[in-house]
């Protein structure tokens, strides 16, 4: 049976949920809030989104989505252009290669997996930035950012799981 226009549109919109949800959250985190020291605790939403969707829905979240998210993240901040693109692509590749070790395992395994991948990503980011500026960067705030990203992972993962289970669950729900 032929699909109606609204059905086609609905299906197409569903397909961009992984990319659009990460993009919206990524933009939201840059809104200035009147909270002291909030800037130092901002989690890396892009990293969470790339890890989650690359792990579970690579069919809807391809490498171009990762590139675009990195580009947005680089443009909104003052880091050298290409830094977040490189790091997000690296996370995408790591998820493609090692994803099977955390995929469909208890959530805690997934969380620990994220912790390891995020640590690798932050380490690479730190190295690249240190090369870029010809000096070793202070690790204090970088660690705070890493810790807040890992600690807040379950919150954002829960949101993405809801989106996955509500709109994209054609092959069974995640963690239910």
């Amino acid at each position: 049976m032929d699909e109606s226009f609204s059905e086609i549109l609905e299906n197409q919109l569903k397909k961009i949920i992984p990319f659009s949800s990460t993009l919206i959250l990524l933009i939201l985190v840059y809104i200035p809030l009147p909270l002291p020291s909030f800037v130092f605790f901002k989690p890396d939403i892009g990293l969470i989104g790339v890890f989650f969707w690359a792990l579970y829905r690579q069919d809807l979240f391809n490498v171009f989505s990762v590139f675009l998210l990195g580009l947005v993240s680089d443009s909104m901040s003052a880091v050298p252009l290409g830094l977040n693109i490189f790091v997000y692509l690296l996370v995408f590749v790591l998820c493609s290669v090692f994803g099977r070790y955390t995929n469909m395992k208890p959530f805690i395994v997934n969380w620990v997996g994220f912790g390891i991948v995020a640590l690798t990503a932050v380490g690479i980011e730190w190295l690249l930035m240190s090369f870029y500026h010809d000096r070793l960067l202070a690790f204090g705030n970088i660690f705070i950012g890493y810790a807040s990203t890992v600690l807040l992972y379950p919150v954002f993962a829960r949101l993405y799981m809801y989106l996955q289970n509500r709109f994209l669950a054609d092959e069974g729900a995640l963690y239910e």
Partner: protein
Amino acid sequence: MKRRRLLFINIGQFQIFVRKSVVTALFILAVVFLALSRSEAPAAQKVRDSVTMLLTPVLRAIEYPTHLIYGGYENLTDWIRVYRQNKQLKEEHADFLRLKTKLNALENENKMLRKMLNYTPPADAVFVTAKIIVQEGGGFSHSLIVYLGNNTNIETGSVVLGEDGVIGRLESINGAYARVILLTDINSKIPVMTEKTRQRGILSGDNTEKPKLLFTSSEAHFETGDTLVTSGVAGVFPSGLPVGRIARIQKDLIEVGLTGNFEEPEYVKIVDYGFKNPLLIPKAQGDD
């Protein structure tokens, strides 16, 4: 199961090859971007500006309701604060009136002395109040994106002031938006001096809350609590703008606590003093 083939090519393997090639190409593109940024090529800035220009209107639309919610809470706390401050202000007002008389006398004396010295004052400064629409920080960079509107009088390199002092400089202007590099950012380096003893140094950001004071004279003597102001050297910032206080001295390491509030501002003041950094002005043809 039979493998699908097109002529002599296995389609499955070909798809994997294409996928790997695309990922590799995008990695290379990321490295090219990094190299362009490192060499400060205009192309990198152009890409960044284009993406920012596309996204900032969206951000402006989103941040409005967010601030409405926070605004309600702030109004309530403001009422209580205003009552307390009013009492304090009445006492301070009496002191200011006494000071004002003294200042008028000093101003007149200053005018007279300038006349005697044939002093030429700098051009009038241009002030713009700009709303912050993007605030980012952390371990890798510290910057703001502000909305300038139709103010075209402001130029790159202008001073950005918070409530109590300098918070950064205008790095780039892109239509109605501008990027501000905060004093805490690793790329920020401004010449400063101690207010009382006029000892100079360079305030260098390192992505922490407390930038470091570098390139100080070996004979210079600093103390915790010394107030730092801009020195005016290099001709970008005028001298005398409050920057911060020395927070900690540890061997050769001098940490500075900034006075300008950059953690929870909503608006910043951008001031173009009309100073031109000779290093930033492009050479005219035939200058060599």
